[in-house]
């Protein structure tokens, strides 16, 4: 075969591969667009249906309100500035509860990993505390810490700490014992075993408890605010319910949904940053 002929075949092969690939990526893009389109229309249809049913009297406007009214309420509160203190206090409580919960939970896991004796002693207590509905402790926190920020953060911690401890401790225990053996064979101490093997190996598990804890923290904060608060989004919901202003309830719900999602996405982003090397 001639040299030029061979290169001709190679070139046609190449263009064939290129064409295959472009068709493939086009197909992928189209699929993605379809998903986004259906997703968006689902949301729009929901709001349109809600609006229409309320205006046409299919559902009770007083109970369910309707989107334009809800958005007007949110916009009004934003402009007048009455929304911001409530939003600020709730987000503040959630962030503090989330950070403290993760930190304390991880620290507790380290302590019981360190001492297998302590771990065995505490095991039944952890099980009891984990199984019981922690929200029931709310009144006790109020008496202990007063009706306010501290009691709400404590309610949040009661929900997040033990779960974090259990998950992180579990991941400490499921580290391949042979990796520990490698460190031991070099004469490594227990401190070295922890920092060289246990902690880095459990890092992904710790980071993934962050995601769970975001959701948990919101539960703790909103319930805490239901119980005690004089401000915050949970307070707005209860207040709106008591004065039968369901537009306020609905708008608070929408804001919670938006802010909680934003916070979750932030954690997902941080997780990606932390784990992208692996």
């Amino acid at each position, binding site marked *: 075969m001639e040299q030029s002929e061979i290169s001709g075949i190679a070139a046609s092969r190449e263009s064939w591969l290129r064409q295959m690939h472009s068709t493939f990526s086009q197909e992928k893009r189209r699929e993605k667009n379809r998903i986004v389109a259906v997703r968006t229309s689902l949301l729009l249809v929901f709001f349109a249906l809600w609006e229409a049913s309320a205006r046409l009297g299919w559902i009770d406007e007083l109970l369910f309100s309707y989107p334009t009214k809800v958005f007007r309420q949110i916009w009004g509160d934003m402009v007048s500035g009455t929304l911001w203190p409530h939003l600020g206090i709730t987000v503040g409580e959630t962030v503090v509860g989330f950070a403290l919960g993760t930190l304390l939970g991880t620290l507790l896991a380290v302590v019981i990993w360190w001492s297998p004796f302590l771990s065995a002693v505490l095991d039944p207590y952890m099980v009891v505390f984990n199984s019981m509905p922690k929200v029931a402790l709310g009144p006790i926190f109020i008496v202990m810490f007063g009706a306010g920020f501290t009691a709400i953060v404590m309610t949040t911690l009661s929900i997040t700490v033990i779960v974090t401890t259990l998950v992180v401790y579990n991941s400490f225990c499921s580290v391949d014992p*042979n990796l520990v053996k*490698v460190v031991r064979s070099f*004469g490594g101490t227990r401190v070295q075993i922890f920092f*060289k*093997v246990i902690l*880095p*190996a459990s890092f992904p598990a710790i980071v993934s408890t962050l995601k769970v804890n975001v959701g948990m923290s919101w539960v703790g904060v909103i319930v805490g605010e239901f119980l005690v608060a004089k401000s915050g989004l949970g307070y707005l919901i209860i207040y709106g319910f008591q004065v039968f202003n369901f537009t306020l309830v609905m708008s608070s719900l929408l804001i919670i949904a938006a802010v909680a999602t934003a916070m979750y996405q932030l954690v997902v982003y941080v997780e990606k940053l932390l784990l992208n090397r692996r």
Partner: protein
Amino acid sequence: MLPVVELKGVTHAYLGEREASLAVEDLNLSIGSGEFVSLVGPSGCGKTTLLSIIAGLLQPSEGEVSVYGRPIHNPSPEIGYMLQQDYLFPWRTILENALLGLELTGNLNEENRRKTVELLGDMGLAGKEDAYPSQLSGGMRQRVALVRTLATDPGLLLLDEPFSALDYQIKLQLEDLVSETLRRRGTTAILVTHDLSEAIAVSNRVILLEPNPGRIRKVFTVPESIREVPPLYARDQPGFAELFHEVWKEMEQAGSKSV
């Protein structure tokens, strides 16, 4: 000359919830400097137990173990231990993995780092220093594990079936590499294996253990003609097949004892 490893009346029992079971009983063994000794035997004969005891990872219930004349109670950097699989840390680069032992023993300095990089090069791993273990093949990873073990410059190397998880061809290449490297460095080595031909090809002595409880049944000395050639060619030496059959027959008898 002082033996590198000396075992005197070593007995070990594992304690469980229901009973205490005897793993090895009254072992006496002495291994000289630069010797390469293999431990073979049917499963349950306490090969790995014995290796863990010599490594200081396990305290024998009775008896005395000394390495370089000093009794062993804890793992020490003088004794290198290589496991069945590489167990490299996936979150560390190849070089960071290789430097682990130096880091743990507090001997990480510029010179040792340079030596480790050189050692990686000797093992055909040049240019892989910044790669992660997941990017390497099984044979390469086991070579990194070898570098990690040798980086602390142990006088005694314990090998717990380090080739058993590898493809046959890579296993043969690694046997050559390990035996050549150890010979050059004058390292004393104890190899646990279930592969008789591997044991004969790489060692000076093959120690056959019998199970229930683990005891030394017989010690075979590998003839000079087999010992002086690389493991790959040792298998073709006259006398290799005969020795293999001799060990094999003895092991069959030892194994039948357990039934």
